[in-house]
């Protein structure tokens, strides 16, 4: 099944709230070699005015991934993980993610462009906090290869 061009404009239901844990932020910081103390040391983060440790800039991917799972699970999408290549990624931040945040992602497919047998799919995940305030928008471009014939 090729990528469904009618995915454009489709908006998915918000994901279940994700509670950002302090140890999760520390674990992620270690995994991406984020050495700044504000990611791991509560006192260092508080000295900057944050309530708890600050997540590294790409932590938003954890929430975005939950939304992309919705896209993969959509029966008519034609988006198949095995043939998917991550081509571009962008984050636009209103503020950094901090431990204690309860975040929800809402995915919208904003573009589908056929390329050969495959397609380029652009989607935006808007991440908001428990108050409904904008935290970050994660835009990703996925290249989905065509099926072998």
């Amino acid at each position, binding site marked *: 099944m090729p990528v469904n061009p009618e995915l454009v404009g489709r908006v998915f239901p918000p994901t279940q709230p994700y509670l950002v844990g302090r140890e*999760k932020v520390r*674990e*992620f*910081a*270690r*995994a*991406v*070699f*984020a*050495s*700044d103390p*504000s*990611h791991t040391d509560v006192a260092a983060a508080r000295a*900057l005015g*944050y309530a708890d440790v*600050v*997540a*590294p*800039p*790409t932590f938003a*991917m*954890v929430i975005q*991934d939950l939304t992309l799972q919705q896209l993969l699970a959509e029966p008519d999408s034609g988006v198949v*993980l*095995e043939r998917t*290549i*991550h*081509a*571009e*990624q*962008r*984050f*636009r*931040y209103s*503020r*950094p993610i901090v431990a204690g945040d309860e975040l929800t992602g809402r995915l919208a497919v904003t573009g589908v462009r056929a390329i050969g047998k495959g397609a380029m799919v652009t989607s935006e995940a808007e991440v908001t906090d428990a108050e409904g305030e904008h935290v970050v928008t994660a*835009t990703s471009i996925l290249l989905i290869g065509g099926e072998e014939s």
Partner: protein
Amino acid sequence: MTNVAPTVGEVVADRTVHLTRESLVRYAGASGDFNPIHYSDEVAERVGLPGVLAHGMLTMGLAGSTIVPWLGDAGRITDYGVRFTRPVVVDANDGADVRVVATVAEVDEEAGTARIDLVVSHAETTVLGKAQVRVRLA
């Protein structure tokens, strides 16, 4: 907290990170991305890859994190985008070195913002395209 006052062309960070298979497994666990092309030679070979690859988001993550100590506050980053142009193959024995050089590309003193360009390379080849971070200076 002190304000940063960069000048165009200034290199604000330069570091090399050594990735091993352990780094990839650690990132898989931390991020939730368990695509086997990032840990299984067998799967990587079957889908036609030159070897086990680092997650693009691991490369993007370590690249972006490189400027945070200079910036003084991750909250000053307003926008960060990259293109994934070439894979980073992580050898089972030798791992892979990824070098990040961050240079000030643009300063808007009135708006108090700057653009930092990241050159991210592995084995003398650039692996991220158009890797740009927009930051507030105060």
